[in-house]
């Protein structure tokens, strides 16, 4: 009787049973709508945990070693000169010294090369506690004006360094106005070391952000002189110091490329630097440093990345080993039904 029932019960028992199903509302089958798309279902099984930790460790440690060694290969000379370059009598009143245009700002420093430095040796100035990322400072420029003479008068964003003596300043704005103006002259054994100041800016800045027909105009002619003056006969696109400076730094401690020394420096070479100490960092407690550095594939000297890679990689390897030990000594099937805790709470069926 049962089997007979089953054979006929597939049909429909309700009213319009005789009517044929012309357009049934049965949803069409597709893997998408039935949510049965083929998929991988990653579950953190012990094997996966161990594998992923080990993998991270195995990838990170070599990278760490490579970057650390690259960083170690870099030779870097850092010389802070802002304090030392102030004559004894002005140490009490640094501000007066730096703001006085009469005082002699020349200062000579000697640097010893600690290791052979292959050319090119990059020369940087480093400023500390200088907020090039201050919003007022960052916004105080006119990209249009820098780009083309047609927009010479577009200086709204440059206040308060927008106009001087009633006409527009080119380049306007606080950034340009505060251009760094210390200069360095290097000599090795009283032989002048040429500093190449070409190609120190990003190519795209030179080609597309600073116009080749835009010449400095009315620059540093206000009542207060900020930083460096510009040669009015050289177009902005050639003023690489300005271009480098205008690409604002992200953090209050930053280095800017000053130039390149294109000869090798040998171990224990004594380099003499004649510094024109013009730039005022004394007013806000900033520091000035001169940096000579070589580069490798990873850039300059910074051990952080290498050390960090090694640390994280090592930690992951350690964890991988811990998990291996854990599963060797205390194997536990995750799928143990005795952990089905809700079952015990579920209001329902005691067995």
């Amino acid at each position, binding site marked *: 009787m049962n089997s007979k029932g089953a054979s006929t019960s597939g049909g429909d028992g309700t009213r319009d049973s005789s009517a044929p*199903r012309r357009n049934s509302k049965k949803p*069409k089958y597709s893997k998408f709508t039935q949510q049965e798309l083929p998929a991988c279902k990653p579950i953190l099984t012990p094997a996966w945990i161990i594998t992923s930790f080990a993998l991270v460790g195995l990838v990170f440690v070599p990278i760490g070693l490579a970057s650390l060694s690259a960083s170690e290969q870099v030779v870097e000379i850092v010389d802070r000169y802002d304090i030392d370059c102030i004559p004894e009598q002005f140490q009490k009143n640094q501000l007066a010294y730096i703001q006085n245009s009469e005082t002699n700002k020349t200062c000579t420093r000697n640097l010893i090369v600690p290791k052979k430095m292959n050319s090119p040796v990059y020369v940087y100035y480093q400023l500390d506690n200088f907020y090039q990322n201050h919003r007022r*400072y960052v916004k105080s420029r006119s990209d249009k004006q820098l780009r083309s003479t047609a927009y010479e008068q577009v200086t709204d964003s440059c206040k308060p360094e927008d106009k001087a003596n009633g006409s527009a300043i080119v380049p306007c704005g606080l950034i340009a106005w505060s251009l760094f103006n210390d200069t360095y002259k290097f000599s090795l054994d009283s032989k002048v070391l040429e500093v190449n100041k070409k190609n120190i800016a990003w190519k795209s800045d030179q080609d597309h952000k600073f116009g080749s027909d835009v010449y400095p105009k009315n620059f540093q002619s206000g009542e207060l002189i900020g930083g460096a003056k510009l040669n009015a006969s050289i177009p902005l696109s050639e003023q690489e110091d300005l271009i480098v400076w205008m690409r604002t730094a992200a*953090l209050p401690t930053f*280095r800017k490329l000053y130039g390149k020394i294109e000869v090798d420096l040998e171990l224990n070479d004594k380099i003499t630097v004649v510094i024109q100490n013009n730039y005022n960092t004394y007013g806000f407690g900033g520091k000035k440093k001169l940096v000579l550095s070589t580069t490798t594939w990873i*850039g300059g000297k910074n051990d952080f990345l290498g050390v960090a890679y090694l640390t*994280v990689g090592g930690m992951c390897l350690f964890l991988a080993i811990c998990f291996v030990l854990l599963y060797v000594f205390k194997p536990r099937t995750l*799928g143990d039904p005795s952990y089905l805790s809700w079952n015990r709470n579920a209001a*329902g069926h005691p067995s």
Partner: protein
Amino acid sequence: MPGKRRRALHLCEMGSFPCARPPPAGDGGGGAGYSRVVYCNDPGCPEATQLDYPGNAISTTRYTVANFIPKSLFEQFRRVANVFFLIVGIVSFSPLAPYRAVSVLLPLIVVVGATMIKEAFEDWRRKKQDIEVNNRKVQVYDGTRAFYQTEWKKLRVGDIVKVEKDEFFPADLLFLSSSFDDGICYVETMNLDGETNLKRKQCLEVTTTLHNECSFHKFKALIRCEDPNEKLYSFIGTMQYQGAQYPLAPQQILLRDSKLRNTQHIYGVVIFTGHDTKVMQNAMDPPSKRSNIERRMDKIVYVLFSGLVLIASTGSIFFGIKTKGEISDRNYRWYIRPDKSSIYFDPSRVALAAFFHFLTSLMLYGCLIPISLYISIEIVKVLQSTFINQDREMYCEETDKPACARTSNLNEELGQVNTILSDKTGTLTCNSMEFVKCSIGGVGYGSGLSEAEEAVRRGSQYESSELKDPPISSEGYNCAAVTRKSVKGFNFKDDRLMNRQWIKEPQSDVIQKFFRILAICHTAIPLVNNSSGDISYEAESPDEAAFVTAARELGFQFYERTQTSISLHEFDPNIGRKVDRTYKLLNILEFSSTRKRMSVIVKTEEDQLLLFCKGADSVIFERLAKNGQEFEAKTKCHINYYSEAGLRTLAIAYRKLSVEEYKKWHEEFLLAKSSVNADRDAIVDETAEKIERDLILVGATAVEDRLQKGVPECINKLAQAGIKIWILTGDKLETAINIGYACQVLRKCMKQIVITLDTPDIDALKKGENNAIEKALHESVAKQIRDAHSQVSVLKGSSGLFALIIDGNSLAFALSRSLENLFLDLAVDCAFVICCRTSPKQKALVTRLVKRSTRKTTLAIGDGANDVGMLQEADIGVGISGVEGMQAVMSSDFAIAQFRFLERLLLVHGHWCYRRIAAMICYFFYKNITFGFILFWFEAHAFFSGQPAYNDWYISFYNVAFTSLPVIALGVFDKDVPSRICLKFPSLHQDGVHNIFFSWPRILGWMLNGVCSSVIIYYFTTSAILQQPFNKDGHGAGTDILGAAMYTCVVWTVNCQLALCLGYFTWIHHVFIWGSIFFWYIFLIIYGSFPPTISTTAYRVFLEACAPSPLYWLSTLFVVISALLPYFLYSTFQRTFFPKYYNIIQSVRLENH
């Protein structure tokens, strides 16, 4: 037909808005509710035009072309987040803005625009539907001699229209005459209430003669009736015609959107047009329900707002301090010219500057507020609903109905259901009645076993096999199994009655009366199948169909009904063959839930006046005559036995009437019927009461309502999932208990606690005074509850399970304020609760009580109009789109065809949706916090000056481009375990009940993870890319490079984080996640190639600076992996040492493969 049905479903959604609907036509002097005047066949007369009723055109759109923009914008900006972004957008035009205004406004425009397009599209669809409806054709009388065709929208109140067979009625009409001589017609009201049976309408006697075009020439009448209202089943009015007043009843009203069937044509007068029609008055928004998760999400948005204000003000305070310090000697930052500062940075007016800075910060950290969250969730939920609608496992072959998510708001709530409140009839059972037993003249007939009886017998077998699936072979559970019986609705076996053997019974005259009553006392319509000559019946309730069928099977075949007569083929034992007998039908006293009985008054061929009555036993027994109680005791005994067997019983009685008595009553009855006021129904009932007395009992019937397929299994699963099940039914206590056994809600091992007021000592109490009784009953219920409570608490620890059974009367007291809490405490401790003899209102009250007191999610499931209150009250209403019409479905949030689909709806879709939405929201907050906090760390290193770390456009694209699609994929497709496992381990559902995926610790954990990621990303990136040369060419890294590198890390981290917490990786996920990351690079290249005035710091930053530098790539790899490590570590430890339930299930699955 499918289209029509869908239209019916849309009624509620069409959402008529107050402003779209003209105000009710109040004509000044009109009293409350009954002021409408209709000048029939003269719509153009001055009086009629003065009334100024609205036309017949309808508009269900929310917006018009003119008001779309302002109105939809207004709707959009009711969301706090949108307003915030609008204000930010406006302020960003001022110099306060850290970014360019357009980049702030773009995401807002995209989000608002997308939502508005969605609105416009939906509205456009409604508009199209309206136009189609308004332009349907109908024939209207031109006032002279002919009918002409016109559009629906041009109809006016008072017009006479002609409707042909199978056409829809264009407005609410007064039925004047039909192609039948006796002035009846049949209508189908599926679009109104979903009922597919034919309803008979009857015009007034005086208008039946209006048959042809000419007769309307002189027809003039005045109708006074009720004002437009939403009651589909009532109508009160009078017609003044040829100097006389005629009462109008719902019988004469043809409602708009119902359909003329089985009738050639009808004529009618338009009474209500357009939005005044009852169907339009019914169309309103269902009460909008919001899910728990969404409510909590709002709170989180507020938390984020306060977080935003907090970090903004922290920044401002520091900014103030630092700026003030600028003037001091050692800190004079000459390069920003503090001496010539604008107000925003003025060290001499620090307070003001700090305030402006605060505004700037609000803009800067605006990305903490997930602007695209709402729209993303909406998209996800719509797609989830599609999955529910498209699920083939929830499609019912028999009725051709798929599941239907009518709102998408509550998908995730399905996964959190703690209590199910279920109706019985039609929900657990098929609601297709079978006549199985009867008691006639004190003798019981019928030898079949009911399901409940079988279940009780089998009961012991189930005890041992609880956790396993019950045997599938059980023959009774199959709905479709009904078809294998030779006759639908008839499952009666008794040789004493079948095959005309009843004439040999000692009381064959009583048996004859009994079946005659069954064949006559009903409102069914016979449908004769032309080819085979078979007769089937269209009845208002399945019980009735079962009775008529039973009468037919036993030799009393009802074959014709006219307005005034009922004809039977009857077996006459005296002659020994079949004869045709026609009974003149004098009155029908209709069934209603308050009356609980129906009667007909007929005149036999012998001119005898008889009243036949069938009704609930309690009602009938009260009205028996002194000499009619002959069989009372035995019948009562049988009825009790039947209800214990889970059958529905009705008592059958009759009465002989004298002509005088009838005449006197009939006049009174007519008067009552023609009264035009609100309590007419009560007056009619009262009058009917006067004749339904002194009845003579004949017997009782018992019909069985079969359980739906799979109900016991489904209930078993739901119970295993820890869901409490309450059954709310209108049945008697015994029936309810037996149904409980049949569907395995009750088991023999359970301790039953019965709270009832139906005990002898209570009966004794009833003799007293009203107030005293109340008090005594209250006391009694209180005592029973208290006793039960102590009993439960004593045995709580042991394995004993309790089932609470309470009847409607006691429930009324139990729900009173003083006992409410005690009752609920008791109910919560019981695994199952059955409330029997409950009224629809009590159902809703119980639902509210449970919802309010347990503070857990409740789900109500039902199929009938009596469940509507319950469905709307519960957190989730599930309607069964079964036999009893569509009212329940129309007010439900989800509609399924059969109860057993509830299992899949809750355990599979509910579980998935809950997990998905919870994960999605948590992740959303994570990604925005990660992003926002990096900005804060950067600002802290930028003098708190409000300088953003990234280029403007990076920020605006974050939410709309680089992170939007993967999170949607997470919300739509993710699943922890496949559906098979969800069903195999129902206790997974408890995750949702305990809300472990969206608990505050979890939310805060994700937020913490976000902060953690931001710290790692910011500090590691800045440490790796410090002041040292960035590449081999010795260039340094500026804001541009650091910003791009940091942003790269963010995009990678948040997308990989998503990949980490995914449990289900399809190609869609791969495309979205890796595509988003890839798109960032593409974006960077494209944006970087715009002229520098547009791209500013992003100009060629990738191609020239980042891409060639190994440092960039190495730091990306390192930072991303490190930022992911905390979460990865946490989840490995949690999985290994404190596995969650679903973790274990996942592992079980893995091992079993």
